[in-house]
């Protein structure tokens, strides 16, 4: 057996792959062969490291050196300098945005310091296409344990006692769900993995499937054992080709090793998994809609009860959990419910993966213990706001969540606290907004998403969200009135109160939370017809300061709609009625004569 002394881990998540990490890997390998080092140094294409901001990421172990933004051309230097001569390639080391220091050791990165990786434990650490590396990291040990040492009921009890709650957004007790499915009587049951991740900006499920597919397979098998199901289905977005590919490889390997199929571990337990592809409808993340979609029917939700645990896929009891939820199961089984429940807050146990996005320095995937504050996540792990701008708000929970402000930054993040603040956990999207962002526009952006993604089944969601969007659009165009704010609120509340499924019941949250926290911005739009963030184009006015204008005609020539008039060497004037606020004149003027307000 070849034992490599040095391991070079290269991120093979979707993000880093797009920045050519495949070529990087092959170049590294070629360099090693040329130097006769391929027996000593192993290059591993892993899943996502989470530090997507500066991909492709390369980590060298055991030195624990973290290189960022590595290009295929850098391969030679890494091998020649670092591997052969033992000298770190300083220019590729990560630079701390605050201290401007190059970080010599991955342990020194703030990005990782506060993280606790349970669901992501193998992401960026093992080769997701190798079942051996998974097994080396205790893959399938939890399955072995439950099959040989525990009864289904005991296993359910462990999951229940761990306090694990659904990571897909609902936050329902996972153990309780398992218990209900286990207790439902039927000749056939199903285990479904919800991999229909749809929140804008969220990609934790994709990363887990790309980085550690075996953990999901193992957890589904454990669930099958607990509930009495021998059939698993992964409902995955067709837009996740890499995750699908890796999952397929993993399933094939697990079958070859006898870890899926008949008589697993000689215990008589049978379990196998198939894939089902979703066409990217957001609402299919809702479990009843997901099930209908798998049945070949229109992907739209139905009223619960009956819950899928009682009547799901093809009318049979079906346990539906999300990818991240499953990824927590094997560690809980191996390390115990007490270990897991010692992490987190009173009612939210364990960790949560968040996808940091927006105006934050370290965009990426982070996993932190429940109870970590937003400040820690945004300012320590996330490295603060880009360009030294002022933090304004953070949207958690994607389009179903709400925005939280400065005053919420020190609240420990958990399911209940976020709801109490008018937002929600959701699947873990976290979009950071700075002073340049208009909150009305942001609410409008989310409503635009919901209007697109509503399935259209129930009236309040189908029509109500459309009307909400229209009112927001009127406001951002400067045509809103104070009455519109009342209408927004009433409509939002009714949509929440009457919609059929979680999508509609949460879709007005971005409106309500911005109304609550940024009423002044709304009022500025409807009373003064001004956008304080200067983002609403229709509320801007371009004008030329006569003092500064020299009459060079540059602005008039660049204006695409001929809204600027004036003779050469005379002061020019912008016709506000014609102006489309494209900003071309502002860019062109060399004399600081064009102003915008």
């Amino acid at each position, binding site marked *: 057996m070849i034992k490599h002394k040095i391991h070079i881990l290269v991120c093979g998540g979707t993000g880093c792959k797009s920045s050519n990490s495949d070529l990087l890997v092959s170049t590294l390998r070629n360099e090693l062969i040329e130097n006769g080092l391929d027996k000593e140094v192993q290059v591993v294409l892993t899943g996502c490291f989470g530090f997507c901001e500066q991909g492709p990421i390369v980590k060298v172990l*055991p030195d624990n050196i973290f290189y960022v933004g590595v290009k295929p051309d850098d391969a030679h230097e890494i091998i020649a300098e670092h591997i052969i001569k033992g000298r*770190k390639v300083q220019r590729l080391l990560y630079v701390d945005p605050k201290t401007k220091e190059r970080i010599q050791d991955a342990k020194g990165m703030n990005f990782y310091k506060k993280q606790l990786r349970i669901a992501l434990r193998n992401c960026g650490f093992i080769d997701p296409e190798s079942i051996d590396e998974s097994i080396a990291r205790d893959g399938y040990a939890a399955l072995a344990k439950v099959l040989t040492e525990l009864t289904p009921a005991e296993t359910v009890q462990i999951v229940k006692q761990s306090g694990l709650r659904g990571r897909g957004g609902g936050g329902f007790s996972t153990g309780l769900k398992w218990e209900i499915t286990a207790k439902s009587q039927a000749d056939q049951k199903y285990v479904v993995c919800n991999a229909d991740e749809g929140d804008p900006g969220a990609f934790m499920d994709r990363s887990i499937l790309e980085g550690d597919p075996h953990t999901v397979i193992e957890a589904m098998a454990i669930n099958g054992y607990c509930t009495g199901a021998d059939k698993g289905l992964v409902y995955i977005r067709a837009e996740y080709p890499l995750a699908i590919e890796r999952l397929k490889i993993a399933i094939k390997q697990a079958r070859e090793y006898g870890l899926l199929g008949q008589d697993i571990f000689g215990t008589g337990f049978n379990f196998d998994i198939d894939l089902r592809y979703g066409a990217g409808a957001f609402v299919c993340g809702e479990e009843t809609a997901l099930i209908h979609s798998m049945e070949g029917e229109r992907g739209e939700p139905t009223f619960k009860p009956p819950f899928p645990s009682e009547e799901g896929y093809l009318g049979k009891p079906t346990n539906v959990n999300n990818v991240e939820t499953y990824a927590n199961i094997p560690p809980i089984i191996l390390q115990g419910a007490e270990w897991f429940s010692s992490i987190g807050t009173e009612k939210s146990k364990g960790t949560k993966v968040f996808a940091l996005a927006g105006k934050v320095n370290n965009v990426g995937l982070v996993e932190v213990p429940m109870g970590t504050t937003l400040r820690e996540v945004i300012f320590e792990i996330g490295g603060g706001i880009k360009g030294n701008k002022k933090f304004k708000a953070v949207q958690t929970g994607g389009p179903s969540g709400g925005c939280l402000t400065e005053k919420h930054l020190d609240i420990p993040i958990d399911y209940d606290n976020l709801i109490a603040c008018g937002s929600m956990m959701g699947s873990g999207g976290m979009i950071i907004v700075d002073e340049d962002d208009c909150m009305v526009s942001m609410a409008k952006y989310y409503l635009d998403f919901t209007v697109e993604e509503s399935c259209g089944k129930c009236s309040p969601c189908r029509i109500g969200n459309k009307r909400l969007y229209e009112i927001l659009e009127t406001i951002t165009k400067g045509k809103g009135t104070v009455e519109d704010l009342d209408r927004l609120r009433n409509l939002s509340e009714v949509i929440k109160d009457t919609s059929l499924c979680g999508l509609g019941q949460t879709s007005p949250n971005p409106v309500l939370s911005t109304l609550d926290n940024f009423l002044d911005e709304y009022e500025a739009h409807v009373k003064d017809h001004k956008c304080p963030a200067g983002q609403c184009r229709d509320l801007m006015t371009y004008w030329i300061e006569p003092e500064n204008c020299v009459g060079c005609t540059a602005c008039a020539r660049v204006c695409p709609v001929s809204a600027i008039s004036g003779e050469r060497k005379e002061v020019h004037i912008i016709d506000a009625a014609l102006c489309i606020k494209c900003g071309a004149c502002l860019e062109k003027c060399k004399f600081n004569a064009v102003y915008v307000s």
Partner: protein
Amino acid sequence: MTKVKTLADLKKLREELQKKIHVRESGDHPESTVQVKVAMATCGIASGAKDVMVFLMEELEKRGIDSVVTQTGCMGYCYAEPTIEVTLPGHEPLVFGFVDKKKADEIIEKYIKNGELVDGIIPITYQSINENQEEGQQ
């Protein structure tokens, strides 16, 4: 193809496979393992550091010591090459000079296993070494 038919199969397989990625595991948790850094600049290599490094790696594993052996650049003590730096969990790092295989064996047996000090310690604290190194590279 490997068939994992029983729990024992899985355990056996896991033990074998864990060795393959042990380097990664211990590299990821340096604070809980013995860390050995071998200075592998031209001076070190010329004076036989590579042999020492391979010896350390093999012997430490053979003797069942959870450890990470990595290479590093010149430590600045070229007169004493080959040099190695050993960090026991919870201890300050120590630098040993003129390490050949025999010396390496002694370091393993005495210092790493039992914490007994051996000859050849270069009496400079880790802090200043580190600073020197930083400066040297800037």
